[in-house]
């Protein structure tokens, strides 16, 4: 199981364009990948509705988890997206 905790740097949080890019990237992967806020239940990173409803704001920490072939690379890519400031 690969796991990464990252801070969301985008001004708008994980909404609007960053959320769309994040979910598109997760959806391309053949493995399951989730995200969660501290103490919260994980949701699928491939579901735009679940990601929006999680309501991740600028500066909040999220934990990404994936298992299987290419999990590390996928989490690298997703971490990069959430740590972009725009």
């Amino acid at each position, binding site marked *: 199981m690969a796991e990464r905790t990252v801070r969301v740097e985008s001004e708008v949080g994980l909404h609007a364009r960053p959320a*769309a890019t994040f979910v598109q990237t997760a959806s391309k992967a053949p493995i399951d990948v989730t995200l969660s806020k501290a103490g919260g239940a994980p949701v699928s990173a491939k579901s*735009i*509705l679940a990601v*929006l*409803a999680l309501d991740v704001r600028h500066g909040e920490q999220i934990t990404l988890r994936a298992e299987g072939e290419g999990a590390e690379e996928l989490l690298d890519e997703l971490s990069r997206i959430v740590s972009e400031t725009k």
Partner: protein
Amino acid sequence: MERLNGTGVSPGVGYGPVHRLVSTVPEPPADAVHTGDAEAEKARAMVALEEVAADLEARGERAGGDAREVLAAQAMMARDPGLAGDVDLLVGRGATAARAVYEAFGKYREMLAGAGAYLAARVADLDDIRDRAVARLLGVPLPGLPEGAARPYVLVARDLAPADTALIDRGSVAAFVTEEGGPTSHTAILARAMGIPAVVACPGATTIEEGTLVLADGASGVVRLSPTDEEVETARNAASAREAVLAAATGPGCTADGYEVPLLANIGGPADLPTALENEAQGVGLYRTEFLFLDRTTPPTVDEQEAAYREVLEAFPGGRVVVRVLDAGADKPLAFLPPPGEEPNPALGERGLRMLLRNRPTLTGQLEALARAAQGTTAKLQVMAPMVAGLAEAEEFVAACRAAGVETAGIMIEIPAAAIRASDLGPAVDFFSIGTNDLAQYTFAADRQVGSLSALQDPWQPALLDLIAMTAEGAKAAGRPCGVCGEAAADPALACVLVGLGVTSLSMGAPALPLVRAALSRHTRAQCEAAAVAARQGQTADEARDLARGLLPGLSDLAL
């Protein structure tokens, strides 16, 4: 002739037959069950969702620009795997494809609606996708625009969704009229971008019959039903004359003889800044901060608040930004504050400054964030308290501001007691700002929320003008500025009267600024003073209005 009144958000006059864009997609009944082949039913649902997604993408591609991104995001929602999983589950339990899609959206709708203002706005997007999918499954027509209309139509709707408007062509729409929405709604932004006249927040709009000829004035917000040719002609001429005048009236607010009256914008958050800047606001006269506090279970951190305040301060280098501290109470309860006791009359209860003085950490946190936000910016930060009744409260608030490092602290005058004793309050504070809406509510003992009492909210009432005059005199005697931030300032004729009464700055919803700027620039300070004296001689609101207007000849250039 019948007329409806709304808020004009995109100037110009539009005339044409009404086309109603009504979302008539029915809710599939809760007991709708399929005939037995669950797999086939699931497949139907998936096909419908995929068709909706593809259609939204195609519309986005054709429209280009920002609409492409908005519609691509909507398409992703239609293809959401979590949604598909829920639909499968519901069909597995026997629901028809249409009912399953409807219910599956319902779950996400609730999650988004409960999670803050930005997401609540996405609910309309979600409803639009749901209606499109359900319409396909039920075989009913999709919500949409008329094809090949013979002449430009006035598009009437409850509100407009991005997918409705992405393909609108400038030549086929004469005006937009919506029942809901405000100056920052999607409809308003789109209308201004396309240069189409628009009226929003217009009660009764969706009851106008299809095909009725209407005349919509996007500046005054008036929608006339079945006007005569002469009225259409007059309105068009007036609109073009007014446009010429407005185009010529730019720069800081001042009277014809050069007496400066800063013209400021009322805003509800950083999202309102573009409209304020477009309309040449010289600063902010009322920054409502409730948006930071509502719809959440924990108070915003000082850092979060600082960022939201700084964004506004930085938009007005060298200008003034007047921030009102949190105005909450029984009518606007906050989850993280202890609930006030039972209040049969919330408007007369523990709200505004009264509530903040009992919840000190909320007040000090906000003042600290404001003081920090002002550091390193050139804007002049001024902070004011709502619902101040007397001297003790005013002094307590000013002391709290000073302790937090806020240099300029003032109070709102919205309780008659404060207006009557303005001469006591003036020396204790740095400025006054008159909130005419609440001042009218408390002066006439008429709840703002009660529609049948709206005549008592008329800001031209002589008793209200007297209280404004007393407040301005109290401020002047103490050498303090006295602004007005309320609907009254947005009325160009009344704005002149307010200046005549001694008000030193005017703050209003930004779309009203150009007309007020033009009205002021056409009258001298002496004319404003004469109009103010005349208005106070009236015995009713109508008399006051007529007497004042008789002394403000420049209003006719503005077709007002």
